[in-house]
């Protein structure tokens, strides 16, 4: 297996992009990444595209060749593969691209993630995104994705004394971070009272505990690390790319406040990279619901189990500390175009490691982690990225 580097990144604005189509945003992100990587499309070997539900959302399947075609590469007859893993589709596509380059079979690939969620009404989007949980044994009985995460939240509060305010702190943090991100769906700051006072979705989670439905796309170009200097002065090495799965339904887990898939993916990633959680300086973690972020901090090994509520509320992840969490604003503020999220997390971390994150640049960012989750943790994907000297 050879070392793999990220050579270029691209991302559209996230939000309600009513004037833009799926294929427009898909190619915008991909072409940005190609230009950023200074890569001739003649050298490209393939496309991996993360997407959760284009068939249900825009009545279009078979989107791999669609994006390839409108990127002007249809007649090159390159392979284009769509990858689906619910909310983790983007990171799962990145894992496939990584395997392709690491194996030596492909040299240069584009990994994209794209989703168009606002072409359907919110209730429809809720139904479609809830299908990333177990339809037959959860959704049929009245569950939605936020309701299932609310069950995680209530159990976490019961076992560890986590408070409603500690959950709300995550949303306040994300919006503070997102206010500096020009691509963010939401750039407004939130007060604790605003989060606590928002209408309930599935108690204890309210409207502002939940990431929005967004449109958006992101892309990266991957290539072998050995030739990366031809394309960029700051190649970012993929130090680990790990996927782990768990039972489809939350009810079948041994413990409802831990995502075992995240624990396993993170442990394997740190082992592969011969690094530890304390080495990570920047992390983009799954915060689709405020409770998701607290559980993630514990499962990734940053905080002792059960302690994430008070530790997060102390503000130590807000910048200036050893670890900064979600400088992009996370899913909550940057936005949640499901299949694009995992790729966008990597775009943000690459920008941070290159020192190109402008207003939101973290000083001394050296090792970055991204964490993408499908459903309630049936799939977790963890990537470690570091600047290659």
């Amino acid at each position, binding site marked *: 297996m050879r070392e793999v580097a990220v050579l270029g990144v691209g991302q559209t604005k996230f939000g309600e992009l009513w004037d833009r189509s799926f294929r427009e945003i898909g190619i915008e992100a991909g072409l940005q990444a190609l230009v950023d990587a200074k890569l001739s499309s003649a050298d490209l070997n393939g496309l991996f595209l993360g997407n959760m539900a284009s068939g249900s959302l825009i009545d279009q399947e078979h989107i791999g060749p669609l994006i390839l075609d409108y990127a002007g590469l249809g007649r090159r007859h390159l392979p284009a593969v769509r990858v689906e893993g619910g909310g983790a589709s983007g990171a799962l596509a990145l894992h496939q691209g990584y395997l392709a380059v690491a194996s030596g079979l492909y040299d240069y690939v584009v990994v994209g993630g794209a989703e168009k969620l606002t072409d359907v009404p919110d209730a429809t989007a809720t139904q479609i995104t809830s299908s990333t949980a177990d339809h037959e044994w959860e959704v049929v009985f*009245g569950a939605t994705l936020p*309701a299932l995460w609310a069950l995680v*939240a209530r159990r976490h509060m019961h076992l560890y004394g986590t408070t409603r305010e500690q959950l709300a702190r995550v949303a306040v943090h994300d919006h503070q971070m997102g206010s500096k991100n020009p691509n963010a769906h939401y750039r407004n700051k939130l007060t604790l009272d605003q989060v606590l006072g928002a209408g309930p979705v599935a*108690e204890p989670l309210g409207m502002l505990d939940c990431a929005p439905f967004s449109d958006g796309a992101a892309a990266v170009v991957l290539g072998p690390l050995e030739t990366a200097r031809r394309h960029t002065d700051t190649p970012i090495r993929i130090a680990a790319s790990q996927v782990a799965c768990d039972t489809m339904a939350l009810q079948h887990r041994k413990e409802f406040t831990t995502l075992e898939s995240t624990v396993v993916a993170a442990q394997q990633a740190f082992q592969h990279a011969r690094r530890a959680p304390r080495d990570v300086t920047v992390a983009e973690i799954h915060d689709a619901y405020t409770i998701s972020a607290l559980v993630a901090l514990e499962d990734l090994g940053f905080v002792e189990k059960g302690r994430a509520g008070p530790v997060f509320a102390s503000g130590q992840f807000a910048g200036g500390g050893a670890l900064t969490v979600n400088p992009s604003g996370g899913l909550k503020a940057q936005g949640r175009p499901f299949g694009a999220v995992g790729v966008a997390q990597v775009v943000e971390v690459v920008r941070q490691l290159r020192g190109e994150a402008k207003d939101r640049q973290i000083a001394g960012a050296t090792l970055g982690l991204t964490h993408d989750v499908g459903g309630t943790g049936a799939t977790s994907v963890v990537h470690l990225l570091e600047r290659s000297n």
Partner: protein
Amino acid sequence: MSIARFWRETPRRYNLGGSKCSNCGTVYFPPRAVCPECTHHRQSIEKMVPSQLSGDGEVLSYTIVHEAAEGFEMQVPYILALVGTPEGPVLTGQVVDIELPDIRIGLKVHATFRKLREEGKAGVIHYGYKFAPSEELETSLAPRGPSAAARVEDAPARDRASA
């Protein structure tokens, strides 16, 4: 959802029919073809036998849902819970016949056969299990003031489902 797709699961959804691994004794709901607990899980193939849940349970976690799943819009706010059974499996289902403030972790419940949802006015009606308290509750019997939370009515039991 097609009629067949829902109908084929009725033995489970109506009667809580699970399965048991005759190799290690673990009970599953819904039934499984292979036992995830057996170290050599291949040993359990063709050794999974039917096993009935008693319907008894205890609330392990709960949420009060305000933004409903499709087909549940008329039932908000409703309680959704993770219910642990003495046989082992945990089920996801609504808790009904209870005042909202009475829901708590540890509440003893029992499965009850109810209407789950219907697909529009003329669509298929889905039936299955929900859970009702099986222990005495405090506030359910208390006088209801204007600020008292709405009773979580199990509307289906009173209209078409009971017809």
